[in-house]
């Protein structure tokens, strides 16, 4: 790792990013230009895992779905913190252990609150 980090030391990253974007763009353009085009009815229907599409996609559905989804994301993402802790378990030692337990305790408190509030009861 560079000790002296400055804007210029990010230049390679920028170049790589541009390369990546260019690669995507160029492939798409080239395939579009090069590939043969046969427009049949089957090919122009939206692909939905083999099931024929029904009605408008913008129909409303239960708000509870969002709640469950958001709660899922919340608790799912928290796991990310456990990976680095697990990797550095030895170095962090007892203190790290306690801190992680506090963190988990807070999460559990939240989780318990969610259950108790009935956020996960679909039929309510």
């Amino acid at each position, binding site marked *: 790792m560079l000790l002296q*980090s400055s804007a210029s030391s990010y230049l390679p990253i920028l170049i790589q990013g541009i390369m990546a974007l260019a690669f995507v763009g160029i492939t798409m353009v080239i395939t579009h230009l090069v590939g043969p085009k046969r427009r049949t009815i089957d090919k122009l229907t939206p692909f939905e895992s083999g099931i024929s599409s029904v009605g408008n996609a913008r129909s409303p559905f239960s708000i509870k779905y969002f709640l469950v989804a958001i709660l899922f994301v919340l608790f799912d993402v928290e796991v990310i913190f456990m990976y680095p802790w697990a990797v550095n378990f030895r170095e962090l030692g007892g203190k790290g252990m306690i801190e992680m337990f506090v963190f988990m305790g807070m999460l559990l*408190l939240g989780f318990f609150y969610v259950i108790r509030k009935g956020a996960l009861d679909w039929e309510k």
Partner: protein
Amino acid sequence: MTSLIIVSVLAVAVLYLGLFKYKTALLPVSVTGLLAAAAMAAMDWDLEKMYFSEMMLFDNYAVAFSILLILTTLLIFGLSRNYFEKISNNVAEYYALMLFALAGGVVMVSFHNLAMLFIGIEILSISLYVLAGIRRKDPASNEASLKYFLMGAFATGFLLFGTALIYGATGSFNLAAIASSGAFESALFRAGVLLMMVGLSFKVSVAPFHTWTPDVYEGSPGLIAMFMATVVKTAGFAAFLRLFLMAFAEASAFWAITVAILCILTLFAGNITAVFQDRFKRLLAWSSVSHAGYLLLAILAVGFSASSAVLVYTIAYSLASVAAFGIMILVSRARGNDHLDSFNGLARTNPFLAFTLTLAVCSLAGIPLTAGFFGKFYVFKVALAQGYTWLVVLAVINAMIGIYYYFKVIIAMYMKENANAVAIQLNPGFRLVLSIVVFLIFLFGIFPGLIANIL
């Protein structure tokens, strides 16, 4: 630090009290907890302790502002008995959210690392997004919440971008390291400073990033608007000043002119637009914008007297705002709306309320013998000491414009009659809080030395 832990744990405890239906215990527990937190904060005086690998620094600045935030919240809680019960079933959540927001505020005044600044701002803001939308059935409240959220998210983007650029330029999030990095000339650093300034300006409603303020204040419940005007603004400015004092002070020659321009814009936008507002809450919202302008003056004057000036100003402003919003809540509840006409004849039906509100708006306007006078006085003084005479002249003109619209409510209360007005009933909490505020406004107006020499 102990106080921060107490506030956080208190919030969780309040949440669980609500979960197990101990509604009567909510307020006593919160008040006791906050008192304990304030006491613990005071214990940290002069200790200058660093926490979490130098991510937080509890110096006297942090302690003073923490105590101010905690005590202001305490005053607001004093007014909240029977308030949330009327507008919602989830009372405990609101106490808890306000406490979480307070915890965010405490982090914002004690950060020593840009990451902590961001975390503090987000803890504060996200709690507020929810609080603004407390009245779920009320479209205005929903609108306020959504607007606040979207604008806040926009601002956070600027803030984070700025933080990233500064990290890019200096290689550190640590304020001391940034200050000693010597990267002030680099374009990356400068862009970072300006973007952070934009992000923070949103949070403290500095023009031209203030546009959300009146809409959000108007749509939010009165008590939440009061919380935004006092605790959130204090925390925001304390964070603003702390960042620019501890990290960017050396580069002040470069960002000062921008702050000066923002200051003028804010003063004029706030005061001029407030002039003909006919709803008191919206008027207070615009006035809160204009007060951000006066506070920017102090930021211009980097140096320790600036923090003292900001402290005096925010104390005075918080006290006056608590009284003004509190009486606005009472009047709009009793008379149906917060239109200035609703205040007609208040002096006859409720002389105490009329007197308190008069004192509060006098303090906001900066009339001598009130705390607000010395707030403005010290801010002007530090700005003058830095040679911003022209800016102070403009600010004084704005203060005069301010007197015009502040006194409209006094005129309504004392000089206009309302034949069918009946006396408004006060509960003991209101009476106590308003009496304390009146006492303190006078106390600090006559003995400004009590607060002027803390920092």
